């Protein structure tokens, strides 16, 4: 079943060139993304929470001689992301419905398949290939369908990612090699989980390997100071590209850190804790401040992601159940809320022909539904209780405060909610409040959201509220997956006598 989630979109992408009619692209994309969304939802509902662990396991030999196999499965950590990927693709297709471009939608399907593969792969080489495969469609989406500086942005995105990939590949190879202990090499994640704690490698070596993973994931997240590819990629990407970029691509970073760094190298994680917490605080405070200084609305939202991902990193660095669980919750919430934000910004700039904050104002009175939803998304971004963003941030902060090693960082980060609140409200004031300028009213048709656009926004709004008010629909799954990982960390602390 999981393989269907991967290969259905990939098949769709492959079939795309066969259609002659340009309109067929979006219909095919709609059909496939709707199917994957339903399917992933079905898998989620069918997941046995009491049993936990990896379910729907599928294992096929691929290159057995090298210990490389096709292994995919779902657990509480991957479920939300798989669903998020499917849903955001569907929503993106709806948001870009006015495009009659097969290539564009083909790229989207390809990206969807690759992204889902990233989250379900239990073989490290499979993971790596999927991780790399994501780059290509996004590169094209930015580079071909983006705005005027698209080439620079696409290339920057690619280069930053590739540098991370080099480290990631080396780290993966080294991990498998070390874990094998001279015996049969294997990239099976489950096997590595049991092998690694038993081997007697020098602490420094493990730290080095772990750092290799970390470089790739921190660039993806993105963490300070390797975040500067993000604002460019976002401003240049078309709306749907931004939705998936913020909604899912960044999450590969946080997911990777928990899945690999935390689970495979808990000891190294302990040594890196202060480093990661520092980066987190910088991301939160600095990211928020830099966002405030932006003049381009899309760039502002992009930088606010740096702030939000800072909470993710803080939660992970806390190494507590609250913190790591909160980090995952925050990633999901950010995917929903910021995805919505990018969608609305896209719709707004499509009407106003600008993304410059100073040129927009009074959008609420011009377009009450679009403006009202933007208002909601911005408040969600500010982390108000009742919406999903609050729970993740709160848990991440609480977890960080619980652990004496990260308590100071938590105290500093709390001020992030102040900056974040200021940022969002100031943006609301400049973009939504007031009256639209005469020039804007005369030159452009500021029509409110139409049926399909509303349909695209509706599921995101609903989920942002649902996961803000009723966390039992999400957090137990996350918690179920985070618990065993944290046990590995506690085992290390016990052995090492921390």
């Amino acid at each position, binding site marked *: 079943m999981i393989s269907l989630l991967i290969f259905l979109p990939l098949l769709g992408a492959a079939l795309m060139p066969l259609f002659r009619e340009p309109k067929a692209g979006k219909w095919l994309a709609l059909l496939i993304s709707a199917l994957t969304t339903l399917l992933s939802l079905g898998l989620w509902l069918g997941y046995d929470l009491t049993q936990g662990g990896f379910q729907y396991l599928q294992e096929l030999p691929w290159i*057995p001689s090298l210990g490389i196999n096709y292994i995919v499965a779902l657990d509480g950590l991957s479920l939300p992301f798989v669903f998020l990927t499917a849903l955001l693709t569907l929503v993106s297709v709806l948001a870009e419905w006015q495009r009659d471009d097969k290539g564009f939608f083909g790229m989207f399907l390809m990206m969807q398949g690759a992204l889902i593969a990233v989250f379900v792969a239990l073989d490290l080489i499979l993971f790596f290939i999927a991780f790399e495969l994501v780059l290509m469609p996004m590169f094209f989406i930015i580079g071909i369908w983006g705005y005027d500086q698209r080439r620079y942005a696409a290339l920057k995105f690619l280069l930053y990612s590739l540098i991370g990939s080099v480290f990631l590949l080396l780290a993966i190879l080294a991990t498998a090699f070390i874990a094998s202990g001279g015996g049969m090499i294997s990239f099976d994640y489950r096997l590595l989980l049991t092998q690694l704690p038993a081997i007697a490698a020098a602490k420094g070596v493990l730290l080095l390997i772990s750092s290799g993973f970390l470089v790739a994931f921190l660039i993806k997240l993105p963490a300070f100071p390797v975040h500067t590819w993000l604002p460019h990629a976002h401003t240049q990407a078309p709306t749907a590209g931004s939705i998936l970029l913020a909604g899912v691509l960044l999450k590969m970073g946080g997911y990777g850190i928990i899945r690999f760094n935390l689970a495979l190298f808990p000891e190294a994680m302990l040594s890196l804790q202060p480093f990661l917490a520092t980066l987190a605080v910088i991301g939160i405070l600095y990211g928020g*401040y830099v966002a405030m200084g932006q003049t381009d609305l899309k760039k502002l939202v992009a930088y606010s992601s740096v702030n939000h991902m800072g909470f993710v990193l803080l939660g992970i660095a806390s190494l507590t159940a609250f913190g790591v669980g909160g980090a995952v919750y925050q990633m999901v919430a950010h995917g929903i809320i910021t995805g919505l934000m990018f969608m609305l910004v896209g719709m707004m700039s499509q009407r106003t022909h600008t993304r410059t904050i100073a040129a927009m104002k009074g959008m609420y009175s011009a377009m009450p539904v679009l403006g009202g939803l933007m208002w909601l998304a911005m408040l969600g971004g500010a982390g108000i209780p009742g919406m999903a963003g*609050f729970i993740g941030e709160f848990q991440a902060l609480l977890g960080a405060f619980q652990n004496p090693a990260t308590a100071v960082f938590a105290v500093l980060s709390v001020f992030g909610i102040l900056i974040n609140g200021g940022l969002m409200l100031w943006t609301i004031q400049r973009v939504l409040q*007031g009256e639209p300028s005469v020039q804007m009213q005369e030159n452009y048709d500021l029509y409110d959201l139409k049926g399909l656009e509303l349909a695209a926004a509706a599921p995101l709004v609903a989920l942002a509220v649902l996961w803000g008010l009723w966390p039992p629909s999400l957090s137990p799954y996350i918690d179920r997956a985070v618990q065993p990982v944290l046990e590995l960390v506690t085992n290390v602390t016990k052995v090492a006598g921390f």
Partner: protein
Amino acid sequence: MNDIVTWAALAPVLALLGSLINGLFGRRLKEPLPGIIGSVAVGAGFVLSFIAFIALLGRTEPSVSLVLWPYLNAGSFSLELGFVIDSLSVIMMMIVTGVGLLIHIYSIGYMHGDSGFSRYFAGLNLFIAAMLILVMADSFLLMFVGWEGVGVVSYLLIGFWYRERLNADAARKAFIVNRIGDVGFLLAMFLIFKTFGTLNIAEVNEAALSLVFGSAALSLIALLLLLAATGKSAQLPLQVWLPDAMAGPTPVSALIHAATMVTAGVYLIARAAPLFAQSPAAAATVAWVGALTAIIAAFVALSQKDIKKILAYSTISQLGYMFVAVGVGAYWVGIFHFFTNAFFKALLFLTAGSVIHALGGEQNIDKMGGLGKSMKITGGTALIAALAISGAPFLSGFFSKDAILSASFNSELIAGYGNYVIYAILLLTAVMTAFYMFRWYYRVFAGSERLDKETKVRLHESPSIMTVPLLILAFFSVVAGYIGLPEFAFPNWLAPWLEQSIEAPVNFVHRAVLTEWLLIGLSVLAVAVGLGLAYWVYHLKNAAPLARFNQGFLGALNRFSQSGAGFDGLYRNVFINPGEGTAGGLAAVDKEVIDRGIRAGFVSVGLLGRLLGLWQSGYVRIYALAMLAGIAILVILLAVTGVMA
């Protein structure tokens, strides 16, 4: 749901429902339907709360808990959301829904013809829902949800007329200043969780009583909660947002920024009473913050010219009184003053609204005067409210204010922290209160008319949908105090009732009956002096003292008072201007330093550097091809080696 009390848990749900209906479909509903929907939703909540109150009255243990669903889930720990309806929260609920209902009804008249009519009621109902969640919460976390919720709605309603830049500014300021307090709330919660391992208020309170008296952790928690309370309740040094918040529609000011939301800080401290009762240093800080706020705000109120700003500063000042009450350990008294204040303060704002409504938006008291003649009900009820807030004998404010004065005089909890000075400050503030309230009354309702000609023509008493709520509030402004008569000589119902929910061991000195009477005499004297001065200056229109306010030392003092005691200017120079500079500066740093630095680092990685150099002339498809080729090579490599092996 067998217990009739638990039905009151539906009150916030109903308000939320009303808000949703008005928010989603309100545009299509004709006036006054959204107002009726809103009023019914709140009215039903009041009925449920009242029934719960009656049901609780006869019980030996008036407290009912209701568990909802888990909210935080991590490892073995799970925090359930839940409501607690006890003697304390049920009083709050009745005020929130009761006064709320009157203000909803009044608003149907006040907001008549506004293009945002349904949006207004959606907001007002949402506020009621959030405020109810705040007071009913059984954990600090759920309380915080309501706490932030009322903050957000307050922000939305202050900026209700969002087209005006000033209103939007005021709304944003309110939210941000409140968020400074929220930082305190969050930190307090983290520390509470670390210390007690729970966020459930009842459990924390119980555990706090077994902690060492005055321990550092307790004091720190209490002080952080105080920070939260100062934000929401507009106390020093975070009082600056409330006067600006008057930019919202006047009924909003009455409900949110006078009667209910701003008292949340007082409620928080009363709810967490054991934390404060166990930490005299923190308790004394609360009392001192309250006393200083009371007198400074009263000082500022003396000179304001905006009919609503005077009331805003008087709200801050009255909240200061409540802070003193909960600071000195007289928790029930804090709630008592909240109770009486809710009536007369809401009434004051609604009469001001009635005046503004009649004058077509005029708010400057220099352009009013003599309105009592043509607006008999508004003028008459305003007089009652002014007397009540001043503490005129036998009216509600007299009893609750006197209880605060007496408690601060007799407090053992903060006996070592200058409680007599606090008493003296409050006594002086009482003089000032009577003075500025009657300045307000005389300038607006009595004396000669100073209206523009156009306004004069339009002048009319408000419709009965607005005046009936005024009359009801006036009635309660008179009688509300009789539930809490001075304990030394009279039966007091409220104190033992509330103390069933607030179990904090605080002692007060029991003085001789004569001393107590003397204290009451002093309170009466304070009111008389303030009232007399105002009468002399503003009613007899003695020109000499008025002229003096513009000269010399008094003139300087006057200008200082008019500027809001200089806080806004100070904050602008110290925080806001540098903050805005930092944001712009850091954006430049990110672009010029961080981005370039990292790029330079990459460029030195050889081949990639050369690729990067190509970005301006290169073709996208070349890079794409290169990457595809890379992946292909990797896959082939793996496959080939696999086959070979």
